[in-house]
Structures are given as structure tokens and as C-alpha cells.
């Protein structure tokens, strides 16, 4: 079933066309890579999907309904945020903000049962991303890969159907990158969470991607990796000749 439908979205910011007729769909439980170089419009597209930016044309539907802000069906991991090492915030506290961080009012006087179930919810999310080990450490003192796991736990703690991740692999070393990719693949497989992950390098995602949304100059080409990452398709997308090379199992786009 179609979970997310992005349909003919145009965004112009300061006279510049950032998104130009962007359209694609994501089905339940699919792993989709949003691939494009810096400045291709990936973050802008996320802002539209999250309802933070109104497009000049087109629409976004989640389960067939126009999206609202704070859609409980959508979890979000923003681009790397700088967390101070002295921040008085444990990994589990950050995940807890995923449960009720948007709520106003005094802290609720939870019954013991409710408190335990909240704690269990947080523990489950931490376990699902392999972060139980450092749940009680200050989040600002964790490594980049560990922080990324905690951010993912924060995003899935409220059981969304779709998880959006904005460049979660940027600035990670190879082993952390592979760990995060396998965590996401596991969430997708075991919990049926559909994933839309942006990256400028598609290679770490090749083994796990069901579909690719390739983005260049505000336009997209979508399909299975083999259908999209081809010299003719990408040359048409870029509107100038590019070549797709396969070097030792890695795909390179050369312009």
C-alpha cells in the first residue's frame, strides 16, 4: 500500500528553483535512498514532507491524506546536530524527548505503571538500534555513530510508519556507516518501518535499498537502482552527459 505520495512538488526560494516537479511514492516497509550531491534539494524536500515548508505547487499525501504538522506516522532524524559534551542529557533522556518532548505543561504525575511503560518504550527503542549499552551516558560524549543511533531511537520510539533521515551517514567512518545501515535495514525488515534516507554517496546503501530517488538540480528520477543509475537516465536528469561507472562493485557517477 502507498504510504507516502509526493506529487508534482515545486519549491522556489529567493527566486531560485529548488524543487522542480518532484514526484515519487513510497510503499509500506520499503527502504528508499534519496541520493544527490550537496545542494540538490534533499533537505528542502524533507522540509516539505515534514510540513515545515509549503510548496508553490504540488502536494504530499501520507496514507492518502494531506500531511499535518507533527504527523505521528512520520519519524525524523535531522542532519547532524552539535551536542555539547557537558549537556546534562543522557541518551535515554533524548529518546524520552521523542515520547513527550513536544508536550506543554507540568510534568505529568505518572502512575507507577505508566512510568514503567514509558521506560520500557524508551528501553525498547534503544535496544532496537543497539544503544542499550550507552543509554545512561551523556549523549554529547558519545561517538558520532553512537549519537546517530540515539537519534534514530528517538525517532522510532513513537512507532512511526515512515522514518526520514537527513544525511545520517555524513562524517561517519566506514564501520560506523555500515553499522547504521544495518540497524536501519533491520528496523525496516523486523518492524516494517518504511525508510527514506538521504545520502550523497549511494554505495553504502546499495545492498539494502529497494528503490532509489535520484535527485539532481531539484528534479528526481525514481525506480530500482538498476533502472535509475544508468548513463542514459542520469544524463537526461542532469540535462548534460554523465557516465555511470562500476568500479570494484561501487557505482560512480562521473560528470
Amino acid at each position, binding site marked *: 500500500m502507498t504510504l507516502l505520495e509526493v506529487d508534482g512538488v515545486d519549491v522556489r526560494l529567493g527566486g531560485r528553483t529548488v524543487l522542480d516537479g518532484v514526484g515519487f511514492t513510497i510503499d509500506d516497509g520499503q527502504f528508499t535512498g534519496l541520493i544527490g550531491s550537496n545542494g540538490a534539494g534533499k533537505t528542502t524536500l524533507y522540509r516539505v514532507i515534514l510540513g515545515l515548508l509549503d510548496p508553490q505547487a504540488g502536494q504530499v499525501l501520507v496514507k492518502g491524506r494531506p500531511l499535518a504538522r507533527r504527523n505521528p506516522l512520520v519519524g*525524523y532524524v535531522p542532519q547532524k546536530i552539535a551536542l555539547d559534551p557537558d*549537556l546534562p542529557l543522557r541518551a535515554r533522556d533524548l529518546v524520552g524527548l521523542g515520547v513527550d518532548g513536544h508536550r*506543554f505543561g507540568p510534568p505529568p504525575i505518572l502512575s507507577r505503571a505508566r512510568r514503567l511503560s514509558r521506560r520500557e518504550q524508551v528501553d525498547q527503542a534503544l535496544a532496537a538500534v543497539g544503544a542499550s549499552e550507552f543509554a545512561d551516558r551523556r549523549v554529547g560524549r558519545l561517538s558520532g555513530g553512537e549519537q546517530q543511533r540515539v537519534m534514530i531511537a528517538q525517532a522510532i520510539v513513537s512507532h512511526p510508519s515512515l522514518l526520514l533521515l537527513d544525511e545520517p551517514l555524513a562524517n561517519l567512518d566506514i564501520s560506523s556507516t555500515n553499522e547504521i545501515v544495518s540497524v536501519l535495514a533491520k528496523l525496516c525488515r523486523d518492524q516494517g518501518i518504511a525508510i527514506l534516507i538521504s545520502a550523497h554517496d549511494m554505495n553504502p546503501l546499495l545492498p539494502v535499498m529497494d528503490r532509489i530517488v535520484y535527485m539532481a538540480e531539484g528534479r528526481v528520477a525514481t525506480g530500482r537502482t538498476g533502472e535509475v543509475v544508468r548513463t542514459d537516465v542520469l544524463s537526461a536528469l542532469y540535462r548534460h552527459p554523465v557516465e555511470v561507472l562500476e568500479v570494484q562493485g561501487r557505482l560512480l557517477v562521473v560528470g
Partner: protein
Amino acid sequence: MSTFLSNPAVHTALLVGLLVAAVSGPVGVFTILRGQSFAGHSLADIGTAGGAASYLIGTNVLVGFVSVNVVAAALMESAGANRARNRDVATGVVLGAALGLSALFLHLETESSTTGATIDVLFGSIFTLGSTTVPFVVGAAAIAIGLLVWIHRPLMLASVAPDLAGARGVPVGLVGAGYLVALAMAVSLSAVAIGAILSTALLIGPAAIAIQLTRRPLAAVVASGAIGVAVTWGGIALAWNSYYWSSSHQQWPVSFFIVSLVLVAFIGTSFGSRR
């Protein structure tokens, strides 16, 4: 010691000190989280224009501080809400203008009277506040604490990850403005108690100690308030006591003792724990 606890000026000082520290400490934790120590210190200095004006026109000094600080906070937020650098520039501009005004007001005030306004505004007057100020202190403290309790979760989320907060439907700008109002109340209260110049010590000091002592956000907020109260009461007691051992039999300033206690505690915890 018996005269200390039976003196009404001391009762007022202890009550005001309690409220001031119970507001400044928790607000300070968020000030550090948001990297707004400069805004906090600037608000205290900006407030001196209001504090000085209140002596000229004869209103309560806290009312002067609060009204100028709330307006200044609103200007700072609207001038540069979206970018940290814009915010610092806007803060700097408002700060300069306000200090100019406060220099003028204090000049006019000292021309016409001998109330010691300059010393009181800059270095505080916790022993000479008088009971008329107490209702204002209680009111400002209640507003600040109520506001902070109401917005603490969205404020935490927006302080740690503004993008995330926005995506979760938190009105990030409004929450930031609410926090600045609480900050304006906190620095006004500490300005009245220990002086505009030193109020940053009570805002940042206890919070800086608390976040070293605990990894938990709520515990840090509560600990910061408790540490604030401890150093404030300790400072009041030491200042009172200084009458007996200072060579001239003049009380030393409360502000000096409070700030010294903050510094000693901060250095102690810095060497102590690395949690």
C-alpha cells in the same frame, strides 16, 4: 547569630534570596543549554536603565528592571531570532543603547539626591530592599517559575535540536520567546538582590556547577536551584557576620560573598567529578 535570625531585614533578605535563586538557577541551566550566556549578561546590564529610571520616577526598582528587560528581550528575539550571530549583534546594539540611558539616568539621579542609587543598581541591595518590594519579587518569581514549568519539555527539545522540535510541531519561536521572558525575570530578580553587574554569577554559576554534578536534565534544574539558594543564603549569613570581624565594623557586600561561594563551589566540582 540570634540577632541574625531575629532581624526583619534578614528575614526579607533570606526570602528574597530564596526566590531569586530558585528562579535564576533553573533558568540558568537552559541559558547554558542554549548558549545564551551573553544574552543573559546583557539583559542584566540593559536592565540598569530601568532600575535607574525607577529611582528617578519613584517606582519600585524591580518594576523598572523587569519592564526594560522584557522589552529588550522581545527586541533581541525579533531582531535576530533565526540566527545566533544576528542575535548576538542585536543584543550588542540594544546593550549599548541601554547602558547609555542608564549612565544618563544615574547621573540625573545623583544630581538631585543621595539615595545611593548607583551602588544599589549596580551591586544590589538585598539588606535594604524593604518589605514593599517583596510582593513584586514573589510575583516575578511566580511568573518565571510557572512559565518555565509550562514550557520545559518543548524548551528542552527546541534547545537541543531546533529542527527536530519544529518537525514535531513545537512552535520554536514562541517557546524561545517564552524562555526569554523567564530569563528577563530571572536577571531582574538577581539584579535587585546582588546587583546588575553580578547577576550573571547567580544565573550561570549554580547551573554550571549543577550540570557537572548530574547527567539528568530535571535533576540538573533542581540541583541548580538548590545550589543557588545555598550560596545566596551562605552569602547573606557571611555578609551579616562580616560586621563583627571587618576592621571598620562595616558589613562587606553580600554580592561579594555570594560570587565567592559560587566560584569556590565551581572550582571544587570541576576538580571533583567528571561524570
